[in-house]
């Protein structure tokens, strides 16, 4: 059971934990974990006021699906429900950029799966951050190259 979506903030779409709760409540699993990424106020000694996220949407969704499928074999977690939403567009300070909700049979599986998903997204999903600072400057953050 998988739900994935890119939330475009320019279209007034909202990333909300209640959607994850609704989705995961449809599963039969008892161990539920939510990971919520938010915009923090300081990065490399610069005061951050917000982040603009860019995403190659079709590729991001495919990467989410692949990560979900891989968990079957890599983590041996076959029975699971996973909710992943990531924003695209401007996100203000302390606002949510990503919600990962995971439901599994046992808590150890839920912790492992949740951690696996966020770490793999960081490594593989084509999403970029442009940080905005209090002096009105902005900068695309350095990342991981997908060029092999």
């Amino acid at each position: 059971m998988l739900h994935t979506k890119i939330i475009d903030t320019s279209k007034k779409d909202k990333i909300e934990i209640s959607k994850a709760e609704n989705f995961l409540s449809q599963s039969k699993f008892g161990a539920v974990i939510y990971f919520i990424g938010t915009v923090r106020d300081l990065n490399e000694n610069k005061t951050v006021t917000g982040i603009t996220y860019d995403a190659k949407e079709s590729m991001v969704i495919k990467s989410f699906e692949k990560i979900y499928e891989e968990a079957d074999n890599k983590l041996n977690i076959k029975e699971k429900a996973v909710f992943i939403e990531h924003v695209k567009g401007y996100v203000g300070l302390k606002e949510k950029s990503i919600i990962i909700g995971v439901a599994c049979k046992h808590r150890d599986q839920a912790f492992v799966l949740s951690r696996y998903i966020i770490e793999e997204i960081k490594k593989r999903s084509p999403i970029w951050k442009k940080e905005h600072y209090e002096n009105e400057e902005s900068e695309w953050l350095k990342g991981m190259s997908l060029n092999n």
Partner: protein
Amino acid sequence: MKISVELFGAAREFSTKSCLDFKLNENSTIKDLRKQMIKFIDIKFKGNENFKKIIKSSAFCSSDDKIVSDNYKIVKKQNFSIIPPIGGG
């Protein structure tokens, strides 16, 4: 042949449009496309080293979302996306 490259992340700074068009010879590869883009930066942005670094460290993907290598042979009417180093979440 004309090849369109969709811009993402830091590469969006190369243009106010979402895509850039390049003219390539028949039998060109992604390596040639990369060179053309660097030439474009030399002309349009006076050789901006940061922009060139972005191109050198980027991957390219085809319209079916597959990352293609530098040796990939480009055929007519193909479009690509430039994928600068990623870092979401």
